[in-house]
Structures are given as structure tokens and as C-alpha cells.
């Protein structure tokens, strides 16, 4: 890279611009599969009757699981499954290296099997760390709304590190 990278006002102007919404589904089989994937044996993630006896609508999504994006060939990334949606910020990042920097989830309600969530995502923050190698910390925020109630149930911030 000839010139050092700089965060411009043009980039900052992209903060908060939502991409097209995408549907995320939480089903009994997807909750159980996630719970198996993390090695949890808590019946709250597996047994519908038990979860109901504890006052939940159905089995409870393990922490960190906010549903599975609706998938179709060509519409989603074939490796990660995330949606290739229209709209939202467009940034030219001159870095090739990419690391997962962090995950933060804020909950406003419990997520259970049967929930259908509408997710919108926007660029929330850019931070540059100078050093022998510049590192750009890019944070995207997704807001998950329960489609049936219209209520925001979770916000998740994902930070990627570009270097």
C-alpha cells in the first residue's frame, strides 16, 4: 500500500445506513443442532415440554444463537451462510488480512424456537490502530426484531479486524 489508510468523513457518513432486512429463523431442529454444536446438554435447549414447564414458549436458543439466515443458492455466502443483501454501506478496504475481532450481544427478550426474526445491519464504528502494520477495526451492528411482535429482541455487534 503506497499511502497509509485513513478513515474519511465519507466513510463515517456510512455509519447507520441499514442494508435490506433479512429473515432469520429459529426452529426446534436448529436450536438443538446449535446446542449440540456447543456441547450443551441443558434440556432447556432440547425438550419442548420441559422448556414450557419453565415458562418459555418453546426450547430456548443457546446464548450467541440468533437464528439461521434464510438460505438460497446465490443469495447467501456458500461458506458462512450470511446473506448477500442489497443496500447498506459500501466501503473500499485496502487490507487483505481479516480476523474475527469480537462478538457482543445485547438481549431484550429470550429467543425461542418458532421465532422468526427480521435482521437489519449497519456499519456502527471504524477505528484505526496505528503500528508497524495498520489495523482497521470495523464494527457492524445487527438489530433483530421479532416479526410477530415487532419488538427488538437482540442487538449484536461484530468486530472484524482488517490488516
Amino acid at each position, binding site marked *: 500500500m503506497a499511502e497509509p489508510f485513513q478513515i474519511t468523513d465519507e466513510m463515517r457518513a456510512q455509519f447507520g445506513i441499514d442494508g435490506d432486512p433479512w429473515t432469520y429463523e429459529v*426452529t*426446534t431442529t436448529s436450536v438443538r443442532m446449535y446446542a*449440540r454444536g456447543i456441547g450443551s*446438554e441443558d434440556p432447556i435447549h432440547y425438550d419442548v415440554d420441559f422448556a414450557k414447564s419453565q415458562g418459555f414458549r418453546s426450547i430456548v436458543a443457546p446464548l450467541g444463537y440468533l437464528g439461521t439466515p434464510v438460505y*438460497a443458492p446465490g443469495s447467501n455466502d456458500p461458506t458462512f451462510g450470511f446473506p448477500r443483501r442489497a443496500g447498506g454501506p459500501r466501503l473500499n478496504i485496502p487490507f487483505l488480512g481479516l480476523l474475527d475481532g469480537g462478538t457482543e450481544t445485547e438481549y431484550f427478550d429470550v429467543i425461542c424456537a418458532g421465532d422468526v426474526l427480521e435482521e437489519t445491519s449497519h456499519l456502527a464504528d471504524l477505528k484505526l490502530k496505528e503500528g508497524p502494520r495498520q489495523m482497521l477495526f470495523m464494527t457492524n451492528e445487527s438489530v433483530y426484531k421479532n416479526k410477530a411482535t415487532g419488538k427488538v429482541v437482540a442487538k449484536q455487534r461484530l468486530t472484524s479486524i482488517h490488516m
Partner: protein
Amino acid sequence: MTQAPDSVITDEMRAAIGVEGPPAVMEVEKTNCRMYARSVGHTDPIFYDEAAAKARGYRGIVAPPGFLGTPIFRPGGSGAVPGELGGRTFSVPYKRILNGGTDYEYFPDPPDGDAICAGDTITARSKISGFEEATGSLGPMLITTRETTYTNQHGKVVAKMYGTLIQY
């Protein structure tokens, strides 16, 4: 054949032929239909998109060929799919086991049958339909055939699976 003096088929095994095992509940949901279709490489939108499936006359996203739902997983359970390698096994003097093959039969026609779609809850009932002994390139072997019947939430038989298990 079964009367041969060195047969590994016991009276207990013969008595088990046709006896149904406990039912297993299989869930067909949008997420697992799509995952299955994606993992095979299907491109037909009826396996992914509810509107496309409905436009073609289905109740919802269609279960791709060979997908009969996901058994309800319970920690500590076997998680085996009934009729495949799961189900009752018997003690025979063979150490190795092979899945010999699987055939799926569909009954998509109303009023007796129906297509399998997301939202369905399928009850699978499996039984041994026969034992056969043979000698092949692997040596003497026992071939167990199993038949599993899949009934949807409306009591309609939607599919049958015929599985072959080879022990040698």
C-alpha cells in the same frame, strides 16, 4: 437357506421379523430442508423458498428427495436415524457392518398420501422385513432388510424407506 445347520439366524431373530420398533418423531422444518438441499447442491427454489413452493402447489418448502425430517435429538440418545443403521440389532458372529443400500418410496398423491413439506411432523416406524444369508467376496454375510414407514401429522403415509444392512 434359513434352515442350514450353520445359519446365524436364530429363532429370536425370526420372531423379530415384522415387529415394529418404537416410533421416532421426525421434524421437517424450513431450516433443515434448506440445509439438506444446500448440502446436496439442489438448485430448485421449492427447496428454499416458501413462495416458490406454494406457487407450484405445495403447502410449504418441500423436503428434498431422501430427506424425511430430523429425528428429535436428545442428549445421551443415539441420535441414529431409524431404519438406516439404527434399530434393533442382534448378536451375530460377524464383526463388520456395512450399509448395503437405501431405497425411498414416496406416496405424494392425495387423498391417501401427500408431499413432505416444512412444518410436517413425521412419525417413523421401523421393522425388520427379513434376514438373508449369502456368501460373497467378503465371505459369509448376514443381510438384514428393514422397512420404515413415515406417517405425517394427518395420518397419511408419505414415504417408506427400505434399508439393507450387511454384517460379515
